[in-house]
């Protein structure tokens, strides 16, 4: 109905308050940290496929360590966002398998467990003199070949772990802006972006060629992330609610500035820095690009999470 015509305009004159933002910054941080936690494994696997281990001496133990830290940030904020954190156990005692939250929680728990094992093996192998006589250290060093055996499975598992949030968003049928195909791709590019950015910080002692590959992954991920957001931002899905949400942001509404900051600082600038780094190796500039990409990714995710929640549903 065209509400610019006086005779047909409909105005809400009495109603309850809208609930506002329900999933806020903790969910943004949750998704962002998960992208880093899974991304370093995916990008690490790509680098191990392309280069010799000797070119990246600290990758074997630093990769699972970074993943472990960020997966725990992700799990902590998943828990903190629940109104009844201790009832999280119900997901394991009373699982409801049609829910992507359930499937994701099980997969993420298994993934974190395997990453913990890899981190311990990698760490104790990297420092053979550390706790030499400790029983646990001896046991972990004894199962050292297990690292290489579980690694392919961990890489395979990293993909659904990074993507399941897109399915949660798809199941959130009240928010039409979140469309499964686009969200799946967004999450995948986010993992590659965050993974390459995360590994850039430990790549100081690596060969130039491996660092060049990191810059390449960062450049591709920022480019396609930007393209995805532009496609969604300007050419929405022709659904009424998605159009209404974006029309508000287009008109300079709340989160407009944050969105464009994310696009420029998070994707465009790091893209050019990464591309230039493929020609001339500059560790400082590459780290700067990684920081910008991580900050920009957080902001972009934050905007995309919050804006559809501002729409009145009834």
């Amino acid at each position, binding site marked *: 109905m065209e509400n610019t015509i006086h005779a047909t305009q409909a105005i809400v004159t009495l109603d309850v*308050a809208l*609930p506002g933002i329900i999933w806020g910054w903790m969910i943004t941080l949750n998704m962002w940290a998960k992208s880093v936690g899974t991304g370093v494994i995916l990008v690490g696997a790509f680098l191990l496929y392309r280069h010799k281990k000797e070119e990246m001496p600290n990758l074997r133990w630093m990769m699972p360590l970074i993943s472990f830290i960020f997966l725990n940030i992700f799990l902590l904020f998943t828990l903190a966002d629940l*109104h009844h954190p201790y009832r999280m156990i*119900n997901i394991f005692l009373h699982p*409801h398998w*049609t829910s992507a939250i359930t499937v994701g929680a099980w997969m993420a728990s298994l993934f974190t467990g395997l990453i913990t094992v890899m981190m311990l093996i990698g760490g104790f192998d990297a420092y053979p003199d550390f706790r030499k006589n400790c029983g646990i250290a001896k046991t972990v060093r004894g199962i050292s070949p297990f690292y290489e055996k579980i690694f392919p499975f961990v890489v395979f598992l990293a993909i659904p772990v990074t993507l399941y949030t897109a399915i949660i968003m798809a199941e959130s*049928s009240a928010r039409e802006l979140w469309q499964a195909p686009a969200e799946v791709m967004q999450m995948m590019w986010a993992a590659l972006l965050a993974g390459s950015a995360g590994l850039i910080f430990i790549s100081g002692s690596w060969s130039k060629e491996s660092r060049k590959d990191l810059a390449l992954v960062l450049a591709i991920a920022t480019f396609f992330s930007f393209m995805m957001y532009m496609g969604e931002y300007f050419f929405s899905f022709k659904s009424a609610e998605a159009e209404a949400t974006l029309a508000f942001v287009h008109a300079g509404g709340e989160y407009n500035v944050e969105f464009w900051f994310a696009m420029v600082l998070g994707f465009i600038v790091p893209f050019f820095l990464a591309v230039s780094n493929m020609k001339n190796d500059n560790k400082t500039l590459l780290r700067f690009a990684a920081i910008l990409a991580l900050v920009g990714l957080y902001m972009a995710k934050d905007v995309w999470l919050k804006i559809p929640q*501002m729409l009145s*549903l009834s």
Partner: protein
Amino acid sequence: MKLGFLVDLNLCMGCKGCEVACKVENEVPLGTWRLRVKYIDIGTFPDTSRSFTPLRCNHCESAPCERICPVSALHYLENGIVNVDSSRCIGCAGCMMACPYGAIYMDPETNTADKCTYCAHRIESGMMPACVVVCPVQANIFGDIDDDTSHISQYIMEHQGAVQVRKPEKHTIPKHFYVGGGNQTLNPLAQQRLEGYNLFNNVTHLKHIGNPHESVIDRFTEPFRSEEKLDNRSFMDFDNNAHESHEEEGGH
């Protein structure tokens, strides 16, 4: 048996009796609602008309809230009601993100998701939902839509062509019908919220979900705290309150 609801918007006069009855029956806390009546003014003064739309859970046959709930706190009863088990709810708010009708809220007292259950506890005892009983014009019609002889089924048959559900494009198969509604009354995107009621106006937003005084850390310490919780019943303890205040004043 499949229980359904029908509201005849031609009859509804916006008295909010159903809203109040629901609040009382289900002890719905302040600032939240299971059932609300929205007023919409159509046209421009002096050529305006006001319509009233009662809004509640649609008890969808393919309920997104039931599908996304990770612990089956939201579940179907045999009579088709989508029920909530608050003792199992983990408070993830997934259901609030999934419900296309915005019919689920976070109870600030229990910190669990809650919504209209068609008064499942009353149905179990053979009674009608509180909102149906209280409606002075019988605009709320409730019954078994699987039974062709029920009042609701016959009402739907009588008004064929004028019966609508909200957001049918979502394929949730709602079991809540409206007679006499139009796009302006049933589609939130066809309505304007002006200053004070604006779609994106902070004034109309609750600043919190859940207990306003509760921080994230409180959620973790909550099971270990012993202080007495506030609930609706505490406001009804008139005798004790009167006695205490009398003593404080040094009365006889």
